[in-house]
């Protein structure tokens, strides 16, 4: 999931909210805006939680275009 998409979705959500808060928008449009806003908020939350917590370290150096090798890493005690 690209990060641009998150920022775009968030900007769109804020725009939708501003429009929905404008009382001159008709009921039909307001409903559509609300639905769009709910969808955007869900997308933002999904992306915020998309990465699972983990700590890894690089094992060996990867060559050009090679996938890097990793292993779990635990910080030293102290």
């Amino acid at each position, binding site marked *: 999931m690209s990060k641009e998409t998150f920022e775009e979705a*968030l900007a769109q959500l*804020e725009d939708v909210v501003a429009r929905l808060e404008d009382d001159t928008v008709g*009921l039909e449009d307001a*409903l559509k805006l609300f*639905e769009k806003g709910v969808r955007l908020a869900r997308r933002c939350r999904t992306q915020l939680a*998309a990465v699972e917590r983990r*700590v890894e370290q690089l094992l060996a150096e990867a060559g050009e275009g090679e996938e890097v090798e990793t292993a779990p890493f635990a*910080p030293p005690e102290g």
Partner: protein
Amino acid sequence: MTGKVLGVGELLREVNAVLAGALGEVTVRGELSGVKVAGSGHWYFQLKDATGTVSCALWASRADRLKFRLADGLAVLVRGTLEVYAQRGSLQLIASEVIPEGIGELQLAFEQLKAKLAAEGLFAPERKRPMPGLPQRIGLVTSPSGAAVRDVLKVLSRWPHLAVLLAPVRVQGRGAAGEIARALRTLGASGRVDVVLVVRGGGSLEDLWAFNEEVVARAIAACAVPVISGVGHEVDVTIADFAADIRAATPTQAAELVVACLEGQARRVEVAAERLHRAARRRLERLWLRLRALEGARGLARLPQRVRLLHQRLEHLAELPRRLRAVLAGRQRRLEGAAARLLHWPVRVGAPRRRELVTARLAVAGERLKALARHRAAELAEKERALAALSPRAVLRRGYSITSREGDGRPLRDPSQVAPGERIISTLAFGQLRSLVVVRGGAQARLFDEEAEHQQSGTASVKGARKA
């Protein structure tokens, strides 16, 4: 001619022997001028003061050990031995060491590299890249055993959805700068990180030296993703800090910048979502107020049973926002409680899975509630339109009229209800007509079918109408 006759080469060897015996190693103070580096890597320069000049040579093997760069005008001490360069018969000082005077060697090297890279535009503000919108995958270049890695991971553990990829390197001593530069290239090219943190705990200028080396500065500037530096304590400034996209004062602060960014983004989403729902609720509540106003309007109280039932359902619907809020508040409290319990590092085995399940269930429940609210709002709008259409006033305005016998308020539905010669009253949208029945029409003249039960039916020929 008296004395020994010597060949030129022989003479010079004798001179060199005398020089070595008489002076040995000397240390000379002076200012550099005419500094040149040959293709071989050897350095040649003059050492001058107000009263004299001596040519000097610094072999490549020695020059490599210098942290700073020889330059015209530098005040230095040169240690070395004097000899005559046989090819030219000129005296030169073969330097073994060049030491800057008045300023530390490292300080000088720092200033020189800073000036050089600044002149190249490597530190220019327009080169700086901003923090990515969602810095969730963090590359970390530091020692795997230092205090810095512990400090950084501790701060980063505050955010649950964040992956760290550590590139373990030495952060001081020979070769450290090369390792740091390589790690930056590897992480940048891996496509697995959004931002890289280059950090090291506090230490002396010598300890932090790797972060003042050119290879590190260039690797930072060339890194495929933005780089945050956090080297030493607040007071320490390194070349790496100048080259970095974002400079943090310490390793801890570098990690805090990342977490603060993510927290800020999450807050923006929640604030927007809350405003979204509040705006929708306000809409529903206003709709309800308008319905109440309609209810109070004249005539509505006498609407048929079916319409009244409809109205009761609308009242029920209007209660929805309040009930939804109560349900959502309950869920929110449970979610916050669960989140508080789960937010501990290190995460207990099984806890992430449970948290996911709870989060997923909450999300599903939340979506179901939202869908319900949406559905109800749409229903509400439709009923509102139906209500407006059903109002007798609206019907009359469309051109229909209600006819009744004089002295009897009940509407007439069938011509057989009146006899010729009786007086009838027709109610129109903007007034009444009083008429005399002349002839009754037949049943074949019905205008509407049975479904149009709320509307008057039948025809009557009217004579002698006059305004009521």
